[in-house]
């Protein structure tokens, strides 16, 4: 499948070209829509392509530029996981059940911010049902396929967000991450993915999974594009009562400050076992590039994961209880049985998990007194073949689905910001991610490290040259 120049252009490059008048936003949108329509039948990234809206929005951007406005995302095409409200589109949240809902009456807050900045929305993206997924497999919409190898999973639950950016349909996508759902597809699809600090970005107008753990954030093919979009996405939103009352930070401005004064360590213990060699080789490669030779044990990370698991299953099942009672047959079988069991979790287990969250938060705060960055694998292995049900880790056969998030879950549990960076090990046909973990509210540090790694050539996110039998 041919990779056109439009497909490899970053958001930063497109915004500069459109702002300068070298190309119109309408022309960019037209090219993007053509690429989407050509590639989507292969990877199944989009569930809703908003063609008319994209062209209308692009023409409006051209008018605003003609009137003298400066727009940070001038004409940048993007797409969002289909749990974001898109005006006049039904918010699927990966389900069949929600298709009977009314179309959204307004855009989600983050989409409004991107539109205001000159972004052009091209549609809603495939996801695992109600975000309870790490695979990118969906019984209703079919599987989303990994652009780097279409026999493999994209990872989930922001599956379409991974496939659309990795295949070059658009340079930027938005996803959500409760236990790893931005970072896992970033790892499997070879992208830069930012899970911001919990409470940083507004969640207003997005369909929830686990209110206590849900984050929204961007995926892209460069760290610079992540910073560009993250700076636009920040801002106080009274419509999200869970948003933290914190001042925003300008991450693009500090992106090139380098890593000289950063104390960087590898997360040890839990994060150095239960993975395939590629997971640890990728961390070692990044650590060597950054000169990080310390290893710090993260105490009780297994319990942190267990606590996140309990809160996730109980809280999400309470959200869906009415639907579970009335129409359990309409759920995806792979999520239904987890929601059913989650509806039975005793309150004391959940409350103890919540209290453990506070304990673990204090441990991690202490650790970050001595370091500025921790490195850990994003996933325990490369993208698995579609349909994989079990994996062998440390000689034990385990169910594949929940264990894909083994290394992401303890970190999002306490809301730390992470950039997953894409590593291509020598001779490897597939990418794998490394988590660059920063202290709370310091997305700028994680982005700086990611940018440094990209410039040094240690990590990269090339557009996938999709190979299938139908080229």
């Amino acid at each position: 499948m041919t990779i056109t120049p439009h497909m490899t252009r970053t958001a930063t490059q497109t915004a500069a070209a459109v702002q300068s008048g070298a190309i119109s936003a309408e022309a960019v949108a037209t090219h993007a829509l053509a690429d989407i329509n050509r590639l989507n039948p292969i990877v199944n990234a989009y569930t809703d392509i908003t063609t008319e809206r994209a062209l209308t929005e692009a023409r409006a951007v051209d008018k605003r530029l003609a009137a003298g406005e400066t727009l940070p995302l001038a004409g940048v095409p993007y797409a969002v996981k289909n749990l974001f409200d898109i005006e006049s589109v039904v918010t699927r949240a990966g389900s069949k059940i929600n298709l009977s809902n009314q179309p959204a009456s307004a855009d989600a807050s983050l989409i409004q911010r991107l539109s205001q900045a000159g972004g052009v929305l091209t549609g809603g993206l495939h996801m695992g049902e109600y975000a309870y997924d790490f695979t990118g497999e969906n019984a209703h919409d079919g599987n989303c396929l990994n652009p780097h190898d279409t026999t493999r999973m994209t990872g989930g639950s922001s599956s379409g967000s991974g496939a659309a950016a990795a295949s070059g349909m658009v340079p930027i996508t938005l996803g959500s991450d409760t236990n790893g759902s931005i970072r896992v597809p970033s790892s499997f699809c070879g992208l830069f993915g930012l899970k911001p600090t919990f409470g940083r970005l507004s969640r207003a107008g997005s369909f929830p999974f686990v209110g206590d753990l849900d984050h929204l954030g961007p995926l892209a093919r460069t760290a610079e594009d992540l910073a560009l979009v993250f700076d636009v996405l920040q801002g106080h939103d009274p419509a999200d009562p869970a948003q933290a009352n914190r001042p925003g930070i300008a991450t693009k401005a500090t992106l090139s400050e380098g890593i000289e004064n950063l104390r960087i360590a590898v997360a040890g213990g839990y994060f150095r076992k239960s993975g395939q060699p590629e997971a640890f080789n990728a961390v070692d490669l990044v650590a060597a590039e950054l000169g990080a030779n310390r290893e710090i044990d993260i105490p009780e990370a297994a319990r942190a994961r267990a606590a996140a698991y309990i809160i996730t299953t109980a809280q999400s099942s309470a959200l869906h209880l009415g639907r579970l009672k009335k129409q359990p047959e309409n759920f995806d079988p792979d999520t239904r049985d987890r929601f059913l069991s989650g509806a039975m979790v005793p309150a004391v287990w959940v409350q103890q998990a919540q209290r453990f969250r506070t304990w673990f938060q204090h441990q991690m705060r202490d650790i970050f007194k001595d370091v500025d960055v921790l490195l850990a694998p994003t996933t325990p292995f490369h993208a698995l073949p579609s349909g994989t049900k079990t994996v062998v880790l440390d000689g034990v056969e385990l169910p594949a689905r929940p264990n894909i998030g083994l290394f992401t879950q303890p970190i999002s549990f306490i809301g730390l910001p992470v950039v997953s960076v894409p590593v291509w090990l020598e001779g490897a046909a597939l990418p794998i991610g490394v988590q660059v973990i920063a202290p709370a509210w310091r997305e700028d540090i994680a982005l700086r490290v990611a940018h440094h790694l990209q410039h040094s050539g240690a990590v990269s996110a090339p557009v996938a040259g999709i190979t299938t039998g139908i080229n």
Partner: protein
Amino acid sequence: MNGPFDAKAYVAHMEKVVDLKIRDEWRPTVEANMAATGKAANLIMSFPLDDEVEAAPVFLP
């Protein structure tokens, strides 16, 4: 917890309490998931926490 968690018996009891209708063909995986949650709970419930460790609230009156 005292002794192994009997996920099968627990599911049979709780589906009535919560008023869920679990089809026979779904039951083995529901029970397997409940057993996995019980295993995770074991890790959490066996960890001593001081009385002053509170869950973080987000409710802002």
